[in-house]
């Protein structure tokens, strides 16, 4: 630390404030969903909210600790930290399983999930590695090393097994993409094996990751909606087949993108943008159509299998295998515009237990049920603000290390949001991952806090480092 400089100077207050807002909202929701009328005291440590308060305190203390350490330490100690989290991930595999997974490390009565901390370790090491590369130096070697940094913890996590966190680790692919590390070298290696072909770059290889995710997302949404007919409360009798809903949504979305981008680009780019968006619309529509067509023309038993995997089987919907998601959606959907009111949730409470895990993985349910669309809209807007703030922070870094780390943070948080809320609204299969800053649980609260505070620290000292 330079002399005369206050600890809080260059601190990014907007990010810190939104972080604290999330803590308050999350705490309120944990309290509401797990409220025990016989022990209503927020600080009653026999209750989940009392425990969560302790976790909050510990997390803030960790955050302060992180903030006291000079930012250069994270760069210097990235490798030991990463290795330490790997050791924990290995150690956890020798623990007795809880609910069929070896995810918990018991430390004197407290349980922590090493997988949560592995995200931080991986983010730091990836930042360290990428920042050490020459910016033009995308080659097979660097791509493989970067992927290995990501894949080692992923494999260990899959052994627990913890599908949710496993999926979250793919968020680092976007970070690599942002930094120019793509699968293009791999693609080139294969493509150039064909005699007579000597590509220097392939478009597909370069943009493989975002394209793949967009296509997967589109396919899932199409499948989920194509089976349903949309009916309206205020327009009785009006029925829109789900597939038309997808097409209409795509059209609206492309139009919005078109007008948004046209007014924000130079004259030179406009023609290109028009072409790209038109192409994107045609492509996405044809993908959706073909997925829909294929699905509708599948044999009944094949259809059943896909429905079961996606958890949209009509037969299993109400009380069968898709019970959890069904109840979660009932809770969210019954919130209405303004919600049922704080502590008035009837579906998503621990006590009623219609939605299991309503204080952890399904905490979005009680929130959505109590605050309605107004609440969920505000929540999503707040997350968007947080993400864009972090991207802004990332882009203002002079150090590549800081930028990679910042992108890791935003992508990890975004993944958690997308998957967690996705499974509450029927857009993602039910894989248990927490909603950042909301879900009950010490490990996730601590790891998200550490992620944010390390970022704040790096950002506050961004002028110190050049590399």
């Amino acid at each position, binding site marked *: 630390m330079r002399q005369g400089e206050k600890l809080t100077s260059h601190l990014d207050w907007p990010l810190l404030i939104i972080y604290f807002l999330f803590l308050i909202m999350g705490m309120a929701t944990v309290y509401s969903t797990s409220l025990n009328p016989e022990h209503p005291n927020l600080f009653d440590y026999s209750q989940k909210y009392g425990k969560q308060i302790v976790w909050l305190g510990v997390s803030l203390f960790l955050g302060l600790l992180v903030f006291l350490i000079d930012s250069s330490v994270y760069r210097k100690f990235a490798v030991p930290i990463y290795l330490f989290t790997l050791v924990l991930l290995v150690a956890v595999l020798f623990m007795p399983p809880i609910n069929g997974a070896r995810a918990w490390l018991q430390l004197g009565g407290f349980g922590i999930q090493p997988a949560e901390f592995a995200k931080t370790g991986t983010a730091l090491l990836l930042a360290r590695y990428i920042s050490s590369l020459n*910016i*033009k130096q995308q080659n097979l070697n660097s791509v493989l090393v970067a992927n290995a940094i990501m894949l080692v913890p992923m494999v260990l996590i899959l052994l627990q097994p913890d599908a949710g966190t496993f999926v979250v680790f793919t968020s680092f692919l*976007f970070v690599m*993409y*942002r930094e*120019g590390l793509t699968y293009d070298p791999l693609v080139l290696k294969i493509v150039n094996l064909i005699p007579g072909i000597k590509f220097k770059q392939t478009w597909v290889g370069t*943009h493989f990751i*975002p394209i793949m*995710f*967009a296509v997967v997302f589109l396919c899932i949404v199409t499948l989920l909606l194509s089976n349903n007919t*949309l*009916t*309206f*409360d*205020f327009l009785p009798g009006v029925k829109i087949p789900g597939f038309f809903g997808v097409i209409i*949504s795509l059209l609206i*979305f492309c139009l*919005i*993108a078109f007008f948004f981008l046209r007014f924000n680009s130079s004259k030179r780019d406009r023609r290109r943008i028009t072409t790209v968006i038109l192409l994107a619309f045609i492509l996405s529509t044809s993908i959706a159509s073909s997925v829909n067509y294929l699905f509708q023309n599948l044999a009944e038993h094949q259809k059943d299998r896909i429905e079961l995997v996606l958890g949209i089987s009509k037969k299993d919907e*109400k009380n069968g295998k898709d019970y959890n998601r*069904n*109840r979660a*959606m*009932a809770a*969210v*959907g*019954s919130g*209405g*515009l303004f919600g*049922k*009111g704080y502590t*008035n949730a*009837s*579906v998503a*409470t621990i*006590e*009623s*237990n*219609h939605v299991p895990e309503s204080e952890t993985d399904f905490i979005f349910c009680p929130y*959505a*049920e109590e605050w309605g*669309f107004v609440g*969920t*809209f505000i929540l*999503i*807007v707040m997350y*968007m603000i947080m993400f*864009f703030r972090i*991207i802004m922070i*990332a*882009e203002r870094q002079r150090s590549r290390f800081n930028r990679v780390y910042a*992108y890791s943070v*935003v992508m990890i948080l*975004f993944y958690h949001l*997308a998957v967690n*809320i*996705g499974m509450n*609204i*029927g*857009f993602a299969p039910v894989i248990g991952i927490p909603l950042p800053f909301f879900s009950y649980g010490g490990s996730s609260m601590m790891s998200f806090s550490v992620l944010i505070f390390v970022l704040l620290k790096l950002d506050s000292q961004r002028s110190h480092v050049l590399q």
Partner: protein
Amino acid sequence: MNFDTRKYVIIVFILTVGIIYTIRLFFMQVIDDTWTLRATEVSERRKQIVPPRGAIFDRFGTKVVSNRTYYNLMFVEDDIKHLDTAAFEKLLGWEKGDVKKRFKEIVIEQRTYRDKNDGYKVKPNYQSDRPYAFIKEMTLDEIAKIAPNLYKFPGFYEEITSMRSYTYPNGANIFGYITEVNEKEIEEDSYYRKGDNIGRAGIEKFYEKELRGQKGIKYIVTSARNNELKPYMGGKYDTIAKQGPNFRLGIDIKLQEYGEKLMQGKRGCIVAIEPSTGEILALVSSPTYDPNLLIGNRNIKKNYPKLILDKDMPLFPRPLAAEYPPGSIFKLLQSLIALQEGVITPESGFPCNKGLVGCHPGHTANNLPDAIKFSCNPYFYAVVRRILQQGKSKNVFADAEIGMNKWYDYMMAFGLGQKFDSDVTGLRPGLIPNSAYYNKWYGYHRWAFSTIRSNSIGQGEIKLTPLQMANVACIIANRGWYYTPHFVKSIGGKGSLPQFRKKHKCKIDRKNYDPVVEGMRRAVNEPGGTASRAKINNEQKIIVCGKTGTAQNPHGEDHAVFISFAPMDQPKIAIAVFIENAGFGGTWSAPVASLMMEKYLTRKVKDKEKEKRILEATFKN
């Protein structure tokens, strides 16, 4: 290479997901109601709170029908763990195998439905996660034996319910009873749900809509295991159950009790009415039953078949629904019509000519009051001949028809041959024949007085219900009018119902009642009168006016009829007593009426001799 544009790819990616999720949430939460319905289905229970029925009081404010707490032994199959059937049977005091039988029975009671979504397969309505009554309507004593040990049988619990309670074992045919609604009633009235009770007879049936009160509805959040957790949204949408209003009846329960006691061992009825209001003071149907026998489904199951199969028909409300020939009491009405028509005067005398009809020996009726006193049959043949054959037409048959039509109009004005618009169900109209009736029976103009003369003395085709007989006594007591006889004095303190405040006038001038009343006085109070047993031997010198009757019974011993009122001036009670197979009305019915009137007017009976004689008499064969 510059990768800065790739940040836009990431921004667009995040923004897209944010927008799509927001739209999806808007659909799910605001537009599409599927999920709201699903949430309601899984997490809410709409619970009806059935209020206790309105309580019923007698005319002096004694509570006669109230509610008592009973207990249902409930169970939820899914909550039952390792049921020790033998121990449970022992606790309930049941036979081996009864518990298993009962479980099967409950499933059958719930019936089945055809599942539309599953190829119309027949499926039971019974659900193992729902509560059902294992034993219904246990008394406090019964549940108290079980409750301390119930904890050993998880899944079973007690639930409070309200059932009727009767202070007196009397008035069963007045109050009626309640049972569970049937499928048809549930279909017809959306108020009812399975397991609700509905009035089946008497006041419970007629005033069902008032007595049942207003159900309350509670919306309760239930857990995934179907436990009730808390009021939905803090009870915002709940409504409170309202008990039915208090009913005040015209019945004097002490008089009712006394009447039922007097009628023990006899078949018949007593109807007592307060003439000035039309309120029924007592309505005894004998033999009767203890209303406590029909409390709750367990009792009804046990006792109803016995009651319905009893050849004495205790469930049959005779005073309202039995139609009897009135016998000689009908002479009073014939007298009134004749006087009004001017075909006789109070001083008219007719010889006791036993050529057409028999009569008691040793009298000559030189005027109308004496004719009533002696109940002289030939006299009234002569009277009715004058009513029917007034010489308005040369043709004797046409003349009879003219007379008959007039006579019929009077009968209608007396409220006969029709159902009263009263507050009771199951009323019968009785029968007053008119000319159309006889034209059909004998052919047009093929009948005259001589054909139908037995009507003169209340035999023939004429039929009255005991309630109508008592009302005839009311009309004479009031000297010309009546209020529709009814039970309910006031509902919720609001006073009598408007239809019972409408005075019915009877087409007979006030002055024409005096000779008839005088005749009734003589019948009771003068030596040689047919109804001397109706006299009240009391220092207050209450003057009773009455008229005996004997209704001919082709199947056996004649029925004894008596109507009367007292005191003679400003009457407080009018009464009809009908005892089947008791023979002459003066011998048995008159003393019963006398005792009832004494009881009502003086609140106690001094003539213990008379009382003893009646209590000991039986006329059942």
